[in-house]
């Protein structure tokens, strides 16, 4: 069993991991940059090692410093959290070379899943649906029509050298195809001097649905249900929930099995997440696999009762999974809101500064994951997420009510936050009705 873990991260996730270790009786080593001397993770861990100046590149991304800190402190494992070095295969390989347990999959697996084309090929071979598209470049509308029919309408026609929407057209029906292709190709010729085109199935108004996976070193793989992360701004998730209002029991089973197949095909170990795009039609497509713990893992913990960080540590220690798929039941409904130090009225401008005073909600079914405290100064160098508020209730409707109540109680003085913006989303009729897709925020009008 692992005795001492170095947490190669900061902020709330570092605190979350330290808490799991405290409960398991594992000693903890925090690493911190010069800007994080007063950070909660630095204070809460049993030991703390300074690994460099404020910029991430010189501290939380400095592999050499982190490896040295591990050796010096006598830790036998590293938990990378999310972001920073968590999906860096070179770092995982360095840990392997130094006989340090990297709490996550092997360097080889991280690398092969990090390569988009390789991951796509692995998934196709395992029978996991990927967005259908032309494998070869297409030059003429005649060839294109054939490909379009095989990938399924609507299709998107893209220039090989494209970018910024140039040389890109959608054809909803075979009738529209030839004109769309010719226009896109002409545009591509004008913009890039190249007529090489690709055709892909056009995924319309999809939801972002991801499946949590646990895989041990003995080939056992289970999924812990899905998370619906369709509420996102510029690809940054804002609200996540589990289960998804859009999944029937049947679809959940189908997607869950695909996720397990995907993880098995990749020879995956530890906790991971398979991301899918889900169309209204029920068709779903593999996007990518995240080879780390996710920000939004608490919602899965709420509905399954499984502590994912502890599970990660146990798997890394060489333990077998103590549950089978049939033991996993999704109970009730959980929602998480990310609370960021930013100002939605100023284009979400980050708002670092000192937290003068704060009050956070509590009570049954309410959880706070945060690393801020009264008097803490949020440094400007890192991510602006300062807290995650998650709730659990027996169904979605009650969970929404609980989240509204909890958000309404949050007071953080001294910095701007997106709490009111989140509150407004929780009151939006479409959101309440579960009628959302990944374009929701684009069409959302925020009124304070």
């Amino acid at each position, binding site marked *: 069993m692992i005795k001492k873990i170095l947490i190669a991260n900061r902020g709330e996730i570092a605190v979350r991991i330290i808490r799991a270790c405290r409960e398991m009786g594992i000693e903890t080593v925090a690493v911190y940059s010069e800007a994080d001397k007063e950070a909660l993770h630095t204070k809460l861990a049993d030991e703390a090692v300074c690994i460099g100046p404020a910029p991430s590149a010189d501290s939380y991304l400095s592999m050499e410093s982190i490896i040295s800190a591990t050796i010096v402190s006598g830790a036998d494992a590293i938990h990378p959290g999310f972001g920073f070095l968590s999906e860096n295969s070179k770092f995982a390989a360095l840990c392997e070379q130094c006989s340090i347990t990297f709490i996550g999959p092997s360097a080889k697996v991280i690398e092969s899943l990090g390569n988009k084309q390789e991951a796509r090929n692995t998934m196709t071979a395992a029978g996991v649906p990927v967005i259908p598209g032309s494998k070869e470049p297409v030059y003429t509308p005649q060839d294109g029509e054939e490909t379009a029919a095989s990938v399924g309408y609507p299709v998107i026609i893209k220039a090989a050298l494209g970018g910024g929407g140039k040389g890109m057209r959608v054809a909803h029906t075979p009738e529209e195809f030839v004109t769309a292709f010719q226009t896109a190709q002409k545009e591509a010729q004008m913009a890039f001097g190249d007529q090489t085109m690709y055709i892909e199935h056009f995924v319309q108004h999809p939801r972002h649905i991801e499946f949590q996976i646990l895989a041990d070193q003995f080939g056992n793989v289970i999924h812990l249900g899905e998370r619906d992360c369709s509420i996102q701004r510029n690809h940054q998730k804002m609200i996540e929930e589990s289960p998804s209002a859009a999944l029937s029991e049947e679809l959940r089973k189908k997607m869950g099995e695909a996720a397990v197949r995907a993880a098995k095909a990749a020879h995956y170990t530890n906790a991971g997440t398979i991301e899918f795009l889900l169309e209204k039609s029920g068709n779903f497509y593999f996007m990518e696999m995240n080879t780390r713990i996710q920000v939004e893992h608490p919602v899965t913990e709420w509905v399954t009762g499984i502590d994912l960080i502890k599970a990660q540590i146990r798997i890394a*220690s060489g333990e077998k999974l103590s549950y089978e798929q049939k033991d996993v039941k999704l109970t009730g409904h959980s929602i998480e809101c990310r609370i960021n130090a930013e100002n939605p009225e100023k284009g979400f401008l980050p708002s670092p500064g000192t937290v003068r005073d704060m009050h956070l909600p509590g009570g049954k079914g309410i959880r706070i994951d945060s690393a801020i405290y009264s008097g803490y100064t949020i440094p400007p160098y890192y991510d602006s997420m300062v807290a995650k508020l998650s709730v659990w209730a027996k169904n979605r409707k009650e969970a929404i009510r609980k989240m509204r109540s909890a958000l309404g109680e949050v007071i953080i003085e001294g910095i701007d936050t997106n709490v009111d913006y989140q509150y407004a989303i929780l009151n939006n009729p479409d959101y309440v009705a579960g009628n959302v897709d990944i374009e929701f925020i684009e069409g959302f009008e925020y009124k304070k």
Partner: protein
Amino acid sequence: MKLDNMFKKTNSSVDKKGYITLGRSGPMVPEGLLRKCNKCGAAIIAEDVRRDNYICPKCGGYFRVHAYRRIEMLADDGSFQEWDSSLQGGNPLEYRGYEEKLEGLREKTGLTEAVVTGRMLINGSAAAVGVCDGRFLMASMGEAVGEKITRAVERATEEGLPLILFACSGGARMQEGIMSLMQMAKTAAAIKRHSDAGLLYISVLTDPTTGGVTASFAMLGDVILAEPKALIGFAGPRVIEQTIRQKLPKGFQRSEFLLEHGFIDGIIRRENMKETLSGVLKLHEKDNVVLPEEDGSSDRKQGYNGDGWDGYGLEDRDAWAHVEASRQADRPVGSDYIEGLFTEFTELHGDRHYGDDKAIIGGIARFHGIPVTVIAQAKGTDTKGNIERNFGMPSPEGYRKALRLMKQAEKFSRPVICFVDTPGAFCGLEAEERGQGEAIARNLYEMSGLKVPVLSVVIGEGGSGGALAMAVADEVWMLENSIYSVLSPEGFASILWKDSSKAKEAARVMKLTAGDLYDLGIVERVFAEPDSYTRETMGQTLDALDREISVFLHKYCSLSEKELTEHRYSRFRRM
């Protein structure tokens, strides 16, 4: 709220005896995976250092490179042929333990001596090369090192090859005493013969280059390059500090210090070294590029109608208007002409004596493919740039740099093209201390006898001797609104009329405009400018210059050395 020591620690609940061993020993860093940067002290991944040209990924500091690795970084694959690989020296002083020491080093490094020499291709260009290896007695120069370098230089001379030497050395090898000292003379003499054969020598200084190596082959390159922050000097900094009992300033004897003091042509980052060397080699290859035949304009006074200045929108402007136009802040400067007329400009720095004057830019470039030496008096384009370039007023080291580059052009038979734009040579205490007058005089003297074509174009202010020191040419041309005079109109008025405010009147009587000087036979050609002459509107003027420079080169490159110098002599003789 202060959180120091507020939280209870974790009590390890893991039974120290009972935990499952994972079949491995505890975490440890395997040998050779990490190393410490000797510059910044940071731990770094050894593989990253190897992959990134032996540069510390944290501080950018340079590690020393082994000789064969260095060759691998430069040579085209498989092109290196080693010369004299087994050559070894003796023990002339019969110094005790020396032979054992050498034997030990041979075993440890796999080298026979501290320098590796041979022939290689760099992007297809052949060169003789010698690379010092600091692992071998700090690559100090004894008999074997001196002999190997000398043989390589001699062979390069024989085979007509350019030479590249990478210096990295503590100096003369003490264990070989006076024999080491003689290697300095021997290598220098061999390089002299190589140079006399008209061949190119590029010296590259790496950390450290000191003592007898600096004072011999390292400082004799036609082109001297250095890696960033390399220690380069004759006496070592510790010795100097002990002698003068003073702390030396930061950066003393580093590459940047040498660049500022005029001893090296440039500092080249390791990742750019191969391309830079290959570029310089190619500029010195005799690839027989022929200029396209240009008719040129038969009108030698473009914009001048014979009776007087016809204007180009300047009808009512008198001489003073030309003076003002020549000083206009947004008027194109020397660097604009270099950029507009030439390709592959490689700037070379320093006078090799005292400094690098930023008021004069010089280097090698191509004009329609043929290598030329370009030297321009340089004003800045804004206040900051002007302060840096001393408002285009050269110091003695500027003229000495120009002369060095002209002599270099002569050695490699490159035409010289100068651009003149200065209010005058810098007038100041330091300039006098370093011999401003001598520097100008020397240029007039040497330029009159240069055995390659020389063209000077006055593009702005042609201020007195400071301008003439770059205008003893086969032809001198002027732009429409440039001026050329013995003194500024202000100075003229103040000397003759004791009133510098009469500069406008002075300008009228001085005959300093392009039109006046054409009529006086001081210049051969005048080029028209558009109404408002700026970087944006200089295109047509550049086209005309481009055409006429082709014609000039056609004409003068075909003359013999004797005809050239005779022509130049008589050009000034008749004035």
